[in-house]
């Protein structure tokens, strides 16, 4: 964290506040750090990486000056490896598994990965080639990490791939949902471009059901990958939720991904409801938009918070305040329908529920009111249930049921990966996990349609 060189917030040019905060390693830093790697055999960092990046290999390649080889090792295993180097919870994954935790300090694997992929971005290297046309076509619904990853591998396996993407650009969460100062949009767009360079067609601004029907897609392609991810933040179910000044955290973060930055948060009081990673993003974005008072409200305690530890630490450093055991009950507005305050109630934790977390319940007569100018809701994301049903797929409250080995849905022609299958024990919602699922889905489609080995030649 002390590597963040500029923690000040500019009120004159808000876009400066959204520059990537952690600087790239200097070549000397990268060299020193990469030479510290022991080049373990059967290295636990590889096992800890959901995409099995051969970490010792890419690190030793940095040390030898083989930067292209290094970037290739990373991107080979993880088509969104540049984004993942910024958003992965490395202390829980690769760096947490580093054997040097027991001897000195773990290798800065995430930063080295960022350094190697930055090199590839700066040098505009095309790292992979499309495979020889195998005559089969695949449609991918959703151009986020899972969809891109599947597309990249399918293209290398010789499939003709079309991605249908509702937004202006592909990249999904990486392009729109992660704060710029952690993941600049150009990084995600480079990954998109890498996929396009393999001949993958990306039809942007194209929504299934609006611009093209499910039927059309089903008839036109040999296989379909449903990788639509998640939808909007669900309703809180409290009064005046649609008031002026109430935001959906996903939409809110998205507005900060491209200049110009909104200026209406300068000096304002903001309350964020929730304590996950998106809630933290909304809070830190508010700070960087110039808000003077940013508070996160969570109905449980710090122990139950779902945000990563490093995100929580970062938010604290950004002077975000936390109100634990606090549940909003009512949004108060002025005569023009503009948010003025939030009524809350204190909570206490009772017995553990099915998820193992202690269930919060309101403390009687503990209502209180806080003055706010904006409320940002970050209590999770709803699912694209309608689309899933249009495809006629078996699902469990929006979580598509798949064969865990093949990623095949109840419709043998449709495979599914990413956030749309996360939940209910089907993996943890992380970009890196989505990338891995996309890859595996591609191999599974290859097996299904071509039927030979599932290896890809570099």
């Amino acid at each position, binding site marked *: 964290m002390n590597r963040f060189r500029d923690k000040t917030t500019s009120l004159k040019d808000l876009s400066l506040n959204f520059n990537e905060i952690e600087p790239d390693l200097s070549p000397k830093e990268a060299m020193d750090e990469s030479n510290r790697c022991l080049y*373990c055999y*059967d290295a636990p960092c590889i096992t800890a990486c959901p995409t099995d990046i051969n970490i010792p290999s890419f690190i030793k390649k940095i040390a030898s000056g083989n930067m292209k080889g290094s970037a290739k090792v990373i991107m080979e295993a993880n088509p969104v490896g540049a984004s993942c180097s910024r958003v992965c919870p490395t202390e829980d994954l690769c760096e947490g598994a580093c054997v040097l935790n027991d001897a000195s300090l773990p290798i800065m694997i995430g930063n080295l990965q960022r350094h190697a992929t930055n090199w590839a971005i700066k040098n505009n290297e095309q790292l992979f080639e499309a495979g020889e046309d195998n005559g089969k076509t695949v449609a991918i619904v959703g151009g986020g990490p899972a969809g891109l990853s599947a597309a990249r591998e399918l293209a290398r396996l010789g499939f003709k791939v079309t991605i249908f993407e509702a937004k202006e650009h592909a990249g999904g969460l990486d392009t729109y949902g992660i704060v710029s100062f952690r993941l600049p949009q150009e990084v995600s767009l480079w990954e998109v471009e890498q996929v396009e360079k393999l001949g993958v067609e990306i039809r942007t601004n194209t929504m299934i059901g609006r611009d093209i029907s499910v039927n059309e897609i089903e008839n036109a392609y040999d296989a379909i990958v449903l990788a639509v991810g998640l939808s909007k933040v669900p309703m809180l179910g409290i009064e005046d939720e649609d008031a002026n000044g109430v935001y959906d955290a996903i939409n809110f973060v998205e507005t900060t991904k491209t200049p110009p930055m909104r200026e209406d948060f300068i000096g304002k009081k903001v309350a964020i409801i929730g304590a996950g990673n998106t809630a933290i993003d909304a809070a830190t974005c508010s700070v960087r938009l110039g808000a003077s008072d940013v508070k996160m409200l969570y109905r449980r305690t710090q122990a139950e918070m779902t945000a990563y530890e490093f995100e929580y630490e970062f938010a604290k450093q950004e002077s975000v305040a936390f109100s634990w055991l606090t549940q909003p009950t009512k949004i108060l507005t002025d005569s023009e329908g503009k948010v003025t305050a939030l009524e809350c109630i204190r909570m206490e934790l009772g017995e553990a529920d099915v998820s193992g977390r202690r269930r919060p319940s309101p403390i009687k007569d503990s209502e209180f009111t806080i003055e706010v100018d904006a409320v940002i809701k970050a209590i999770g994301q709803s699912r694209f249930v309608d689309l899933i049903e249009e495809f006629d797929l078996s699902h469990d409250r929006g979580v598509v049921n798949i064969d865990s080995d093949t990623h095949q849905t109840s419709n043998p022609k449709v495979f599914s990966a990413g956030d749309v299958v996360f939940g209910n024990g089907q993996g943890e919602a992380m970009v890196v996990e989505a990338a891995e699922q996309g890859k595996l889905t591609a191999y599974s489609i290859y097996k299904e349609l071509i039927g030979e080995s599932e290896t890809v030649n570099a």
Partner: protein
Amino acid sequence: MADLSINFAGIKSPNPFWLASAPPTNSGYQVQRAFEAGWGGAVWKTLGEPILNISSRFAGTHFNGQRVAGFNNTELITDRPLEVNLKEIYETKKRFPNNPIIASLMVEPEQEKWHEIVKRVEAVGVDGFELNFGCPHGMAERGMGAASGQVPELVEKQTMWAKEAAESPVIVKLTPNITDITATAYAAVQGGADAISMINTINSLAGVDLDTWNTIPHVAGKGAHGGYCGPAVKPIALNMVAECARNSTINVPISGIGGISDWRDAVEFMLMGAGGLQVCTAAMHHGFSIVEDMVEGLNNYLDDKGLASVGDLVGKSVPKYSDWGDLDLNYKSVARINTDTCINCNKCHIACEDTAHQCIDMLKAKDGTKYLQVNEDDCVGCNLCSIVCPVDGAIDMIEIPSDEPMTWKEREAAIKEPSCGISLVK
């Protein structure tokens, strides 16, 4: 506080750390700075002719981020006039009467030239001479330096000529660019040398530039071999010191040179027979102040060992250095992994598996934790695992009971047949 002073072949020094004849001892300014920093003595950069040098001259060899693992130079002897050097030696000696200054000399192999330079230099009050029979580049092409040093007869003859004129002790500095250093060491002794010093630099080419394809270093696009020194050459130097020290016909003190970078290296050289030490690359890499730790570290070491004087170290390991034929064929050691300290990088496993004797197994305990274990029956005690292990104390080499000692020489004698006639199979 142990006594660090030495009397090396009659040359007294407050501690055994001398700067070797090289760029650090090029001038009075530098040598005086060195003495202020705590160096015991200095071998003044070689006096002689011609007075010329080239640009550039040095190259470092770096390894895995470690700078100057080795060092290469194509610099010649002093490029300052003799009169200037003599004046500065005189002034330095006056300021630091207790710190020995040894003049390194190099002239053509002619008796009168040696007589002349020895007399002129002795007149300014040096404490001794070091004849440079080692410099491998430039001067060698003119029949000096290593060109002389590679011919035992020339070493003997020139030593004799120097001794004919010198009142103070004469040290002969030997080149490592030779098959058997004891041959030239013996020649120096026959010539009357009071001491020998080793090693000078080893013929080397530091590298080639991947972009320009020039040698490193290059002079206007062309390169020539230089002399190699620094930490990388220490094992070679230590072996040469040891070979001379254990040879009873070479009965003069040895000044150890070659990659000495800290007090630990110093102790090793002294244990292996060096009565004094010379340092260059470490000072060039870090400056004169490193001597402070060298002196203090050596002092603490002697105190810990209960030794009153640094001289008590000299040669203590020489009897332990021998020939392969004197090693016990029945001695056995095996590797043992300390699972508490092991960090499971598995480097030992793969080193043994790929390149040694396939005797380190990767196992899983009942609770799922991974651990490594040496199959001691198959282990030949080669040490590879403990060498690649990054954690001190994670792999111990354990001595295990074995049969009566039997060396190759004893085995040969027992069989009573010439060695060429017997099979090596047990």
